[in-house]
């Protein structure tokens, strides 16, 4: 891999700042500036937290439903099965993130191997 490939194009880095860094950082700086006066349990913040969680959930679903790159070579049933199996073990182990992730991965790899 060449040096130029590692950097990529400058346009993409500019997009990172406009679409990623600024829209993200603005909330931290607002928190720093206006701290104090906001009640953490206010109804508006409850709604905001719920929408933010649901957006993240949508992203999780997007990666599984419309997978990028190498993940697209894994059949639908194995991707959904891996998430389902991981979730069951996560709940059975009293919410162990580690156990859930390992189970999902093992399910997917074993399924791939079994299907050939």
């Amino acid at each position, binding site marked *: 891999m060449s040096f130029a490939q590692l950097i990529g194009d400058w346009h993409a880095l500019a997009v990172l700042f406009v679409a*990623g860094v600024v829209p993200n950082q603005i909330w931290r700086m607002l928190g720093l500036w206006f701290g104090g006066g906001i009640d953490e349990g206010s109804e508006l913040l409850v709604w905001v937290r719920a929408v933010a969680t649901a957006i993240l959930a949508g992203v999780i679903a997007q990666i599984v439903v419309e997978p990028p790159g190498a*993940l697209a070579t894994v059949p639908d049933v194995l991707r959904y099965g891996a*998430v389902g199996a991981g979730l069951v073990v996560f709940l059975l182990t009293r919410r162990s993130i580690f156990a859930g992730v390992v189970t999902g991965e093992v399910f997917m790899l074993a399924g791939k191997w079994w299907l050939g």
Partner: protein
Amino acid sequence: MALPPLDSPQWQSPWRAFAWGLRSITQTILTIVLFVTYLGIGALAHDTHFSLVWALASTLFVWAGPAQIILITTLGSGATIIQSAIAVTVSAIRLFPMVVSVLPLMRTPTTKRRELVFAAHLTAVTLWVECHRFLPLVPRERRIAFVHGLGCGLVSVCLVANTVGYFLAANLTQTLGAAILLLTPLSFLFSTARNSREVADVVALALGILLYPLAAKMNSGLDILVSGVVAGTIAYGVHWWREVRA
């Protein structure tokens, strides 16, 4: 490793406090969860055709896993800059209450706002959780230095993970590459589920996953925002309904 007692002379130097913060990353399972998540982000960046420097810059300057994944997946699937920026900023609103609640733990009567800028930048869910755990064990006037150390340690771990994940995705067989990409949805699903204490959080997570495929059928280009706002508002409705009944 145990932190020195509050009155120990070890705390007299801010550099020592920074070093104690740095070493504290070895005291939490969340460091491993972050490593795995950022391994996945590195691989995701590779498979959606972003450069390694781009991935590292996103970790350094965005420093919020969900925002980075939203940015990579939306831009990678052809969303416009405006659409991506809206999705990122909505996901980042949760940083506001985190910063508001964590900075008072570090503030002294003489602390200036600009001394807290870097600590505010480092604030994300992992640091927020760990601050509530570690800071009561750190003398107040050394807490900013401690948090700088803790945050720099976590960022470094994630930069290494990004690099490893990026090269693994470039060089592994397809099956193992797929396994690394699968780390992202799994680790985010379970760490979000683990942080969900209230019913509204659980409903938002479950409905957000279930509604996305429906929203995607509409092909509006704003799928994630549509399913997110609908699912989040229903979750808020459930919260409100339970409050009224209680």
